[in-house]
């Protein structure tokens, strides 16, 4: 066990898997010599050589396109998109190609790539360094979409994603790279070193995709969240004084509907939180599935707490961010409804 922040945990996942499987290659903009603008690939080129860890042209579509070809060859590419906001030039290769290759070829070819991309706001990155685009991927059949909330989970989930034979979009909430940010931006950040999930085994382990984690058991209300919002919701539950059961989804597709439904059937109440903008966000799908699976148990309307339906603004970032006050208010609404 070692104390790791999320960057180190991701680096460790890459290191451990690359050591085990010579077919894993890592590439992307600035990931080679420099080790990535967030340092997630630091040291890997030195250790595994320039042909397994390398820089690329600034062409996200080319990065994904070549990765698909490498996957068809038999390699297992793990690519970095520097910011999730810059994944759109690769959208066609992801949606039309990676996601459908196995299906359209009758299982003859597949693209076992892992696409890592830092996502989310709260770092004064403005509209192009803050986005959470998970919902556009969860709508695409053939892609898996994962977002961790702790270093421990990040490593175990990333290893499972890399070893997965399907394409996985692995979104890393950069606001929690260094510590479990709870939305109180006015307070100093607690580092991961002080959090139990900052203790990470140095060796290999997997967290299977599709298994949610109940991070706070509770009786009054079910809260569904992922990424940074898990910590915001935990803080909000304390502040609202609500006995919330907080579920960290970890993987959005595949989704652990069993865990979700069991909890909502128990509590009868549900709040869903995400940082992405509201309309058509993954919260809509969660609300739909909860409604479908738990309608007769629901005692109050489900509420969503989300980013607003606007781009992520630079100066108003804390007005945009669905912080603990907004989540707490929704919790109270739902509990008192």
């Amino acid at each position, binding site marked *: 066990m070692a104390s790791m922040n999320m960057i180190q945990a991701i680096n460790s996942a890459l290191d451990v898997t690359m050591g085990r499987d010579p077919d894993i290659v890592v590439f992307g903009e600035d990931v080679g010599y420099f080790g990535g603008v967030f340092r997630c690939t630091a040291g890997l080129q030195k250790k595994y050589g320039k042909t397994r860890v390398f820089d690329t042209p600034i062409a996200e579509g*080319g990065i994904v396109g070549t990765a698909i070809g490498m996957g068809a060859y038999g390699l297992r590419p793990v690519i970095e998109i520097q910011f999730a906001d810059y994944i759109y030039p690769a959208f066609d290769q992801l949606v039309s190609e990676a996601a459908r290759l196995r299906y359209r070829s009758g299982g003859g070819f597949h693209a076992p790539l892992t696409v890592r991309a830092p996502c989310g706001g709260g770092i004064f990155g403005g509209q192009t360094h803050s986005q959470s685009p998970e919902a556009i991927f969860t709508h695409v059949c053939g892609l898996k979409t994962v977002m961790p909330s702790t270093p421990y989970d990040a490593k175990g989930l990333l290893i499972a994603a890399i070893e997965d034979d399907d394409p996985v979009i692995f979104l890393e909430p950069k606001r929690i790279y260094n510590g479990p940010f709870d939305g109180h931006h006015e307070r100093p950040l607690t580092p991961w070193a002080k959090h139990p999930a900052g203790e990470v085994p140095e060796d290999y382990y997997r967290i299977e995709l599709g298994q949610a984690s109940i991070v706070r058991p509770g009786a009054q209300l079910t809260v569904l969240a992922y990424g940074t919002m898990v910590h915001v919701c935990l803080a909000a539950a304390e502040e609202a004084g609500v006995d919330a059961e907080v579920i960290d989804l970890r993987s959005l597709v595949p989704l652990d509907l069993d865990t979700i439904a069991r909890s909502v059937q128990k509590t009868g109440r549900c709040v869903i939180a995400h940082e992405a903008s509201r309309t058509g966000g993954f919260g809509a799908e969660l609300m739909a599935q909860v409604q479908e699976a738990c309608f007769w148990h629901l005692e109050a309307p489900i509420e969503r707490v989300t980013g607003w339906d606007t781009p992520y603004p630079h100066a108003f970032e804390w007005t945009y961010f669905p912080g603990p006050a907004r989540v707490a208010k929704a919790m109270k609404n739902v509990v008192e409804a």
Partner: protein
Amino acid sequence: MTSSAHEPGAALRLHVPEPKARPGEVPDFSGMSVPPAGTLARPPIDADEPALREYPYALIRVLDDAQRAVGPWAPALTPERLRAGLRHMMLTRAFDDRMLRVQRQGKTSFYMKSTGEEAVAVAQAYALDDGDMLFPSYRQQGLLIARDWPLVDLMCQIFSNPGDRLKGRQLPVMYSVPEKNFFSISGNLGTQFPQAVGWAMASAIKGDTRIAASWVGDGTTAEGDVHYALTFAAVYQAPVLLNVVNNQWAISSFQGFAGGERTTFAARAIGYGVPGLRVDGNDFLAVYAVTQWAAERARRNYGPTLIELVTYRAAAHSTSDDPSAYRPQDEAARWPLGDPVERLKQHLIGLGAWSEAQHEALARELEEHVKAQLREAEALGTLGTPPAGVESLFEDVFKDMPPHLQRQLAELKGA
């Protein structure tokens, strides 16, 4: 443009390309330069790109007007091999003709012919090794035919019948044949180009000896993926052949809308420091020779080559298209580079290795072969015969079926 458009202070004007002739007009290929065969040198395979800058503007041709093989690019192919090539081209054409009829009969939804372009696929397949990986567009069925893949398998895909190994999921002609190192064809134009580069990079990463080749049409060169492919291929010196099949048309748009008015598609290569070769795409021997040069170059770690194959789409774009609405009906007949089958046939006759009678006999034999294969395929069903059980609808979305798809499958079965 009149000169007033160029005077100081003149109003700006938008140039919109226009082909030389539209329906009802006389086809006009006067702007196209067709240099004599055999005049261009064959450079060493390790030549640097700067030494090759004339090639994108030239046209490598081996067969002269009398269909004799001339000049340094003439490949050393035995008459047997040439006859085999002729046979594969003729088989491709017979297959296309039959499949068009089958579609017209309503036995499938869609078909795309490669008529007039058979030399591209067949000669290129001949110049590559069987282990080399092919990332084709929808108009290189000749690659599979040249690799001796059974027609019945292609037909079953076209019929989406129980013999279709793609389980009825793909539009007809979007084949995928791992056994023949033939990658799954995509309906999305150009996407295969960077994928081929990635495959080639992987082969280089692993110290393999197999190279990759990919094909796009003239129209498709405008897609970003083509730029990605060239950039990555150049940067990492990937062992890959990037082929642009310039058949003059992209559905109703002539190649001027992809930039062909101002320069050649082979010239794109120059911008990346990659060799660009331009070849008479209806000249089996020239296509073979150029491909073989580029393949050897790639295999010996001298990096990628872009090849523009100049040809003509003699048939409609697809069964959904009617070209008489946008180009003169007799344009194909007036195409200056002739017909690839006819040219190779005459070449073989000139060699004394073939005759009209043999040719006719072969044509009949191939037609019979196609018919026999068709009977076999039709026996398994045509469009409308379910290719598999409904659960196959939910298979292969992921390697293992996740719970939500299991639930949907149950819902479907319950419905």
